[in-house]
């Protein structure tokens, strides 16, 4: 087992340092690039926080849908192939719910401020 603090705590400390101490000192194109860098660190922090749980739930749903076992990558590949072949579609019980949940979990990491995501979040909550 690796030692502490955790990667989540470490990336968050770097992002907070850049945001609070460095960003006010930087202007112009470098300030834009700094914002992108901070956004990346924030995204990584969200992913490290949420990935384990959302991947585990995704694998559970994929197992039930596909009737097979595998890694989250392999199962996604198989699902994509079955949709491409027309063996699975929106009439397949559970598919729409699975895609919605998976996509919501992705947006929670990638772009929690995206307007479509916020709209759908308020719908389910």
């Amino acid at each position, binding site marked *: 087992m690796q030692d502490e603090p955790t990667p989540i705590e470490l990336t968050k400390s770097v992002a907070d340092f850049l945001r609070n101490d460095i960003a006010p000192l930087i202007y112009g194109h470098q300030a834009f*690039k700094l914002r*992108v*860098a901070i*956004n*990346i660190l924030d*995204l990584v922090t969200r992913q490290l926080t949420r990935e384990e749980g959302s991947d585990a739930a995704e694998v559970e749903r994929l197992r039930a849908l596909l009737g097979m076992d595998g890694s989250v990558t392999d199962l*996604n*590949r198989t*699902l*994509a*192939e079955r*949709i*491409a072949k*027309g063996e699975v*579609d*929106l009439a397949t019980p559970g598919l*729409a719910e699975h*895609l*919605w949940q*998976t*996509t*919501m979990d*992705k*947006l929670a990491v*990638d*772009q929690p401020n*995206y*307007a*479509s*995501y916020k*709209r*759908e979040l308020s*719908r*389910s909550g």
Partner: protein
Amino acid sequence: MIEAELSRSVARWCEGATGVTGAAKLSGGASQETWRFDIVHPDEPIGAILRRSPKGYGAAPTRAAGLGAEAQLMQLAYEAGVPSPRVMHVLTPDDDLGTGFIMQRVEGETIARKILRDDEFAAARPRLARQIGGVLAKLHGLPRDKLPELRSRSATEEISEFERDYRSLDWPKPVFELALRWLRDHDPGPSAETTLVHGDFRNGNLIIGADGLRAVLDWELAHLGDPMEDLGWVCVNSWRFGEIDKPVGGFGSRQELFAGYEAAGRKVDPSRVKFWEVMGTLRWGIMCGGMMQRFREGPDHSMERAMIGRRASETEIDLLRLLAPRGS
């Protein structure tokens, strides 16, 4: 220094011009650049824009119409009353500037977030969706026999091309597969009429002023095809910048867009527009994947490119909202 070549060039074709000042590169990759500069003239300075492929970069990407065709289209559009910059000069080998053209600079804003939020554009915003409809109708009405040679793509060919692009990424995405199936199942077939299609008519390529739409830019992806493609593309959620209940670029409704289009004497086919909106959403998603691939394989290992790769999931939620909406 580019100003020396530009000064020699303008002296030849712009009467009274004595030189240029303030040349600055606005954007550009290796094969296409955009520069702004001012022509020094006894009456008053003339704002200008150069679009060019530098010397040694002749070949345009496969989908691009080419700078020669772009110049011709902008000129035609300008003459037909489509808000468009006036083309002042098409480069020749004597200019020693590569291939491309010089156009008059149109002042205004292209940054969508400003156009959608700043007070300066408050009066223009409610009118834009309808105005865009009218402009697209004029653009689609440009006479075929005057157009330069352009690629022609049916919806069916376009689906196949995007599918090939997507497969080449080796990036399995169940939502993209679902969208590809939907597009195949809803392929509207050849359109009743084949017209000029701008191909990238959206926020970012439109110069807006307090008075409304002032110029349509970036004719790089112009081609012949289904005119409904442009109406669908301008409605893709990615260009609404948060104003998701105003489908036309975050400005207004489809009804206003369609009304402006039909008032200018052309017919709208809403189901074809929906097809092209789904196609456009997937197209942008696959483009995000292309950015990710180029980020990985270099040479542009930039953070911005990496983050655009992560924006593919935005198109996934938008595709689900279009194809599998949850109970409202």
